[in-house]
Each structure stands twice: as structure tokens, then as C-alpha cells.
């Protein structure tokens, strides 16, 4: 199985009604291009091209697929259709839109909307540890609107992470890359090859995967929020199961963010999926609650502590 990377289609290539401007990204499973349609609108085109099964040399258009790999190539195509099917049914401002789907060059292409912006990952890297609470709450509440739409269609995203949350120039989030999304609630479907990102994948991702549910995506949301504060991914869930050395958000950022927000992050990151928010709605509800600003906490003297206790008792 060759390890060479595939050659992308050249800039300016005419792919059906689209003109390719440039390559946006190259993964093991697909290549994403920036292209223009007939009306001059920019779109992102995802080309199915697993480089272990299909090879496209320089200057070639069609990939070479050996007869041995033909069946596996088709099988992967099924997964690609799965992603297309999942996305086509979703119409929500916070979920990437599929505009077209077609066959060409012996493989398949998915055309998606393209907007200017950047991923949350890029944003985190730029603002290392200086992301405000207001921004976090605003961003995640809207992102969760999209995720709610996904879940209400009986789908799970299963690969949520900052690099899969795209932010338009007005900072409204869009969920992208549904390559791992599966119709998990229809149990007759064979489970496909596991796909996950350490640090953001829930503990259920690792085991038999029978416990996957909305709470698994919620773990990833919690991990993404944690990454916003920390500037990097939290400890991977499979390591945490063995030896949990993740400092709870409540401890790590005590006093810098509101207790409620930190509590929510720790809540989402609970290793036991039963102790996490069970639905996106529950999480959203918690996120939009009244914000109590972080209180300055000086170590109170014993006298103040007594006074505080009496005050507290009096209030009750």
C-alpha cells in the first residue's frame, strides 16, 4: 500500500461547472479545494481520494486504482456518501451546507459552501489563553444550536474539535467535516473504521463504541472549551481512564472565569457519560444562565470566615 501523497488537481482546472482556484487541505481520505462556480461564487469542493487505495500522479486527472483495491475504494465511497447524506439533510446556519454532489474522474465530489473566516483552532492559537468568557459563551451557545440540529436528525458528529469549528468573519460558528458522522441510531448499519482525535474524543470512542450518544459529542464540546482556556487539547480520554491527570477547569482557572462556566466544562468532561449533560439542550440551558462575574477571592481571615458564615445563615 503506497504511502505517497496524491497530487491535487491543478489550479484553474475545470471540474464540471466549477473552476478550481487552489487546494485548501489534503487529508488521508480526501482533498479539499477552493473553487468558483458559474456565478463566481466561492465554494469548497471535497474530493474523495484515499491515498492508500487510489493514486493520482502528477499531471493526471484520474486516479489509478488497482483491481485489488477496487472493492475497498468503493467501500470508502460508501462512507463518503454517508457524509453527504448526513449533511444534505441538515439546513442550519451553524452547520456547513452541501450545495452539490457529483461524479467525475472516477471518483465523487461534494460541493460545500465556502465563507471567509478561520477555524476555532487558529483562533485559539492566536489568542493563547486570552479568550473572554463572554466570547466563549456566545460562540458555544451558537455552535450548540448547530449541534442540536445534528442530533435532532439522529446523527452524531463524532469528531468535534476546534479545527472542525469554522468561524465566519462575524465570529458565527459553523460545524464542518462530518467525515465521522454516522447514523448511529439506525443500529443495522455496520460500524465503520473508528475515527477520532485524541484529546477531543470521548472515552466511549475508544471502547466498544456501543455507548456512543449525544453525550459523546458533548464531551468533545467540553474538551474544546477546555482547549480554549488552556490553549491546547486536554489529556486524551483513554489516558485519563488509566490515570486521570487532567486538572479540573474549576481548579485551574479558579477566579479567572465564572464558577458556573468552569463547572460546565468539568461537567462535560466527566469520564462517566451518565454524569455529563445528557442533551445539547441541557448544556445550552446551563450556558445561557445568568452570569455571575468571577469574585475576587482573597484568603479570608478566620474572623471574616465567621462573619461570612453568619451572613450566609442570616440570608437563609
Amino acid at each position, binding site marked *: 500500500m503506497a504511502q505517497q501523497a496524491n497530487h491535487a488537481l491543478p489550479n484553474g482546472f475545470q471540474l464540471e461547472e466549477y473552476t478550481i482556484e487552489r487546494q485548501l487541505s489534503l487529508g488521508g481520505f480526501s482533498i479539499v479545494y477552493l473553487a468558483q462556480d458559474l456565478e463566481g461564487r466561492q465554494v469548497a469542493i471535497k474530493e474523495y481520494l484515499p491515498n492508500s487505495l487510489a493514486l493520482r500522479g502528477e499531471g493526471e486527472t484520474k486516479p489509478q486504482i488497482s483491481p*485489488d483495491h477496487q472493492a475497498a475504494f468503493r467501500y470508502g465511497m460508501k462512507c463518503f456518501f454517508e457524509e453527504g447524506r448526513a449533511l444534505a439533510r441538515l439546513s442550519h446556519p451553524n452547520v456547513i451546507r*452541501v450545495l452539490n*454532489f457529483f461524479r467525475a474522474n472516477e471518483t465523487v465530489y461534494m460541493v460545500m459552501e465556502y465563507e471567509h473566516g478561520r477555524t476555532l483552532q487558529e483562533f485559539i492559537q492566536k489568542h493563547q489563553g486570552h479568550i473572554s468568557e463572554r466570547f466563549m459563551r456566545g460562540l458555544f451557545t451558537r455552535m450548540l444550536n448547530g449541534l442540536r440540529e445534528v442530533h435532532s436528525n439522529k446523527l452524531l458528529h463524532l469528531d468535534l474539535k476546534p479545527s472542525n469549528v469554522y468561524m465566519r468573519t462575524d465570529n458565527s460558528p459553523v460545524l464542518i467535516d462530518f467525515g465521522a458522522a454516522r447514523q448511529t441510531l439506525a443500529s443495522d448499519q455496520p460500524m465503520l473504521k473508528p475515527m477520532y482525535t485524541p484529546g477531543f474524543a470521548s472515552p466511549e470512542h475508544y471502547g466498544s463504541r456501543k455507548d456512543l450518544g449525544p453525550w459523546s459529542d458533548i464531551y468533545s464540546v467540553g474538551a474544546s472549551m477546555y482547549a480554549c482556556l488552556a490553549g491546547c487539547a486536554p489529556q486524551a480520554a483513554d489516558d485519563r481512564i488509566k490515570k486521570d491527570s487532567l486538572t479540573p477547569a474549576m481548579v485551574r482557572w479558579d477566579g479567572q472565569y465564572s464558577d458556573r462556566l468552569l463547572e460546565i466544562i468539568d461537567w462535560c468532561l466527566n469520564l462517566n457519560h451518565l454524569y455529563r449533560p445528557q442533551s445539547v439542550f441541557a448544556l445550552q440551558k446551563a450556558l445561557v444562565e445568568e452570569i455571575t462575574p468571577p469574585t475576587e477571592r482573597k484568603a479570608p481571615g478566620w474572623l471574616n470566615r465567621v462573619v461570612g458564615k453568619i451572613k450566609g445563615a442570616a440570608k437563609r
Partner: protein
Amino acid sequence: MRFTIYQESRQGGRANNEDRVAYCYSRDALLMVVADGMGGHFYGEIAAQIAVQTMTDSFQQEAHPNIGDPFRFLQKAMTNAHHAILDYSAKHHLSDSPRTTCVACVIQDSVAYWAHAGDSRLFVLRRGKVFAQTRDHSRVRLLIEEGVISEAQAAVHPERNKIYSCLGGGQTPEIEFSRKTPLEDGDIVLLCSDGLWGVTSGEAMALTLKGANLLQAAPMIMGQAEVKGGPTGDNLSLVAVRWEETYVEPSASSVSTQTMAMGEVTTRLDEFGRNPAAKTDLTEHEIERAIEEIRLAIDKYTPKK
């Protein structure tokens, strides 16, 4: 670390493939495994799958990014695999435990370490010759060594498939370890099941692979062996790596692990029961239908402007 690697498993003329192959590598270490589930016993393919899975899982846990003691690692991982197979048969109340051969090789710091149980083989090919190879744990091998029969007689001996060590089964496996073998630039380490070495000699493979592009030559060897095996041929599998020194100009196909993160491990292993070649075959018609369906959904859910 830099190398070119190829792995493949073919069904041959059999009804199902009971061979399993896998490789995985971290920044500083590489593991390759071939397991040949034993026909005649129940669930041969399950035993083989458990073996490669256990080996690759252990590698992922221990290679951070190198392995402390490769021989100890091989010993532990193979013993664990043996017990995992026994656990499986106990759990599923199998009357007889499934069995598999296993050969595994770790390469790190340009030194190869390998271990095997059964008759799956490892060859080190250097400059077109067989430099080293494993000794099968089979009765015919013993007979050859005692001078009772010749190599040629062994090839057609009725008991040539009988082996005295394997993973799974009632007896504790006899795991044989290699010496530490330093590799040179261009050396090929090739692991294979008896479906391949039974019809193609190590010397022939050494000649074919000498100076050739591994990614083209290895599938060719497999193709020829499959033809030689004929309509009733055994399953055949191989994992082969061409070792490259980092100061030599890299070939186009080589994998460099230099930029890998410390804890990162890349694994190639086909999922159990999901041999894609054996299963799905999306027909042209189905593809057209899937695309049509997606297009309809797009139209249906796109808000009209």
C-alpha cells in the same frame, strides 16, 4: 527512521482468509506482525485477529516513542495474545481453543528483533541473498534437521503443515527469539505466512526484491504465488519493509517518521470481519442512486431563495 513498507493478505483459493497482517510505527520504532489462523481448528481467523490486535495494542501502549526492551516486549505481547485467545474460547465456551501462528518483528535504532511461534516466517534479505530466517516450529523441519528427509521431500510431505508451537491451544507456546540483527541500508525484512513461502523460496524473493521498487515487486511476488497456489491454494500474506539509512537519498515511496509526535503511532490493520474486498461491492447503479438521493435531499432542504 526511514523505510518503505508494504503489506498484503490474499485469500488464495480458500473460502475465507484466516491470515492477518499488521504493522505500526511510532517516531522511533516499527512493529510488523503476521498471524496465520489454523484451519482445521475452529475460528482460526479469530485467533489470528486477536494475535495481531493484541500485538499492535501493546505497541501503541509501549512505543513512546521507542520500546525499552524489544525482546521483552515481544515476549510479553505474544504471551498476552496467547492468553487473550484462551480467554476468548473460555468466554464463548468453545470446545477447542482456536490457534494461530505468529511472527513479529520490532525494528528500532536500525536493529531488528524478532520472535515467532509456528511456521510463519521472517526473512532478512540482504543484497539479493537470504541473510537470516526463522526456523519453523514444524515436524518436517525437525525431520530435515535430523537428516531423515530432504528439503525436496519436505515440500510434499503429508505432515508438512503440522506445527508444534502456536498461540492459543492447550500448550504453552514455544516462542523463539532472534539475535539482535543490525540492519544495513537497503535490507529487506519480510514476514510471510506459509501460503507464500510454501510456493516461493526465500532466495527467489531475495532476487526479485533486490534493488526493485518494493511497492511494485511485492505485489508481483504475491500475484505469482497466488497463481502457483492454484485454485485450492492457501491464504497468503506478507509484510515487507525496506530499511533506509537517513543519510542516503530517500526513495519516493519511503516513510519518514522524523516529524512524528512523541506519542503518535500509525497503525495499519484491517478491522475484523470487515475485509472490505470480501464484502461490499457498490455497483454502478448503487452509486448513481446514492448520488441521486443526496441531490434530492439537497434540493429538498435548501431554502428557496
